[in-house]
């Protein structure tokens, strides 16, 4: 029997020729990621082993991105724990404030993760890197502690669901809309424990930024990983960035899928996920005129340069609605600098938006835009659980950057075609 791309990458990280869904393996890890929330627990766990050294500091990446620049004293203490651990173990992939970006925007951009890798991260959105033909999955703090010591992770090889997207996307429809639509179809546990493999002509035509946004939200369908077979788009993205040799894998024709879904998305509108689950999805037209208080553009889902470009295209020469607070977070310092050079930041500030240094901040109600009781946000982030962005009685709607920008101008959820 043939193997899926997910099975092939996992097999290549064991001493087995082949692995198949359901099999239990102990796999070698290429990159192991932690952040300022999850790594402090991992470091405490690692230290219980009494080891002097981590197995290989070059496989460890520490990204203090959630509550940085430090939002309070406790967060500063946690950031200090990361900094001290990175220094002690000579971890070169530690990113201090001023160099740091949102982890899942930063690692692809810097070429730290490369096609063919097996990556684990103590952050659920580690599945993002599947867009580059990587097996990449979110785990917990103890998993990465064990990996610091041994370089390995325990895994059950997942079944794969294949999603084939047919047709041609309309204007203002993006990778974010494809993944919201998909989650709406299969539900928040529709791919629980499974791999989601995205393909078809629509994916082949999709930019890497959009592919990253899609795979980022595989976890919102419960998946272990999202993955896209690498192609010329992947090659173009990675060849100037890669820090290591890389390898392209693809699924065999005779591999086994647990399910295959084919969607014709030619008539798909921009999608919006209503509170309080990412599966509560509808076309933007169905919810136009819902009033909002705050708009957030950024995050590990939509904080890349093409996301900012499309927002700027809509906001150029316009002002946001007087009752709206617009917060824009470039995903990394490089994204920020590029946006500055292209004049996007000037457009945002002239539109009366607030532009922040890269941070996960508002996505999880941490800082830089926490919601009050009864407030409603429209956000390009990935989760709309009740109260996630602040007060337990606040609401979140999810959308793509174009819808977010258009809605910030009208003060209510708006299709971009009504503005431009």
């Amino acid at each position, binding site marked *: 029997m043939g193997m899926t791309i997910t099975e092939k990458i996992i097999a290549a990280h064991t001493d087995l020729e082949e692995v198949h869904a359901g099999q239990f393996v102990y796999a070698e890890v290429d990159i192991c990621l932690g952040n300022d929330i*999850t790594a402090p627990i991992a470091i405490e766990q690692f230290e219980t082993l009494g080891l002097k050294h981590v197995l290989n500091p070059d496989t460890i990446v520490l990204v203090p991105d959630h509550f940085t620049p430090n939002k309070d004293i406790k967060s500063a203490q946690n950031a200090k724990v990361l900094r001290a651990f990175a220094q002690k173990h000579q971890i070169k992939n530690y990113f201090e404030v001023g160099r740091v970006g949102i982890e899942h925007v930063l690692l692809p951009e810097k070429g730290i993760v490369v096609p063919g890798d097996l990556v684990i991260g103590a952050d659920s959105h580690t599945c993002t890197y599947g867009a580059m033909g990587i097996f990449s999955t979110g785990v917990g703090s103890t998993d990465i502690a064990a990996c610091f010591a041994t370089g390995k992770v325990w895994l059950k090889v997942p079944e794969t669901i294949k999603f084939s997207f047919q047709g041609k996307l309309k204007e203002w429809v993006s990778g974010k809309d494809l993944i919201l639509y998909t989650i709406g179809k299969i539900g928040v546990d529709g791919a*629980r424990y499974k791999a989601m493999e995205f393909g078809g002509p629509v994916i082949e035509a999709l930019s890497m930024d959009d592919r990253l946004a899609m795979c980022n939200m595989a976890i919102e369908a419960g998946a272990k990983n999202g993955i896209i077979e690498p192609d010329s788009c992947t090659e173009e993205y990675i060849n100037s960035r890669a820090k290591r040799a890389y390898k392209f894998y693809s699924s065999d024709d005779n591999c086994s899928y647990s399910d295959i879904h084919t969607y014709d998305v030619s008539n798909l509108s921009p999608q919006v996920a209503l509170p309080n689950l990412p599966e509560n999805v509808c076309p933007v037209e169905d919810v136009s005129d819902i009033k909002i208080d705050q708009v957030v553009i950024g995050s590990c889902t939509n904080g890349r340069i093409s996301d900012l470009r499309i927002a700027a295209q809509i906001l150029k020469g316009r002002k946001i609605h007087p009752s709206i607070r617009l917060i824009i977070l470039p995903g990394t310092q490089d994204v920020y600098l590029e946006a500055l050079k292209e004049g996007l930041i000037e457009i945002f500030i002239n539109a009366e938006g607030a532009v922040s240094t890269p941070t996960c901040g508002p996505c999880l109600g941490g800082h830089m835009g926490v919601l009050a009781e009864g407030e409603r946000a429209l956000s390009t982030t990935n989760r709309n659980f009740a109260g996630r962005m602040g007060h337990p009685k606040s609401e979140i709607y999810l959308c793509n950057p174009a819808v977010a920008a258009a809605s910030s101008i009208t003060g209510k959820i708006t299709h971009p075609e009504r503005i431009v």
Partner: protein
Amino acid sequence: MKGIIWKYGDNVNTDEIIPARYLNTTDLKELSSHCMEDIDPDFVRKAKKGDIIIAGENFGCGSSREHAPLSIKHFGISCVIAKSFARIFFRNAINIGLPIFESENAAIEINEGDEVSIDLDLSKIIDMTTKKEYSFSPFPDEMKGIIEAGGLMEYVVRSKHFKT
């Protein structure tokens, strides 16, 4: 394991189990003092050590934060029963030694307030209030090794699979 049941629905997420506003600490006592706060603000006042949480599908979905199972474990909850668990919560629970059991019928039929015990030898969930018994899905052998060791860090020390 024996305790009173606290019952919740489908898709209980880790933001509800431990909201991000408390993730600036790793102090287990502090984390456990906010256990289940955004789904049930009174939980820490009404639940007692040894009690059992029961829920529907996809318990622990969302963020990978290990603070979620840690807050449940260190509050003193003896185990969590659900129709199904989200995968990162599932592995975190195994890795830190929080007992979890998948049992669809138990999750449907057992009521809040029932007194329930778990018989590990017989793989049974026993509702002492209604006198009904339920089986739970057995763990794969590989996972049993981690569970029997008491958690992943203990297993790493012992297991040939993690030898470097």
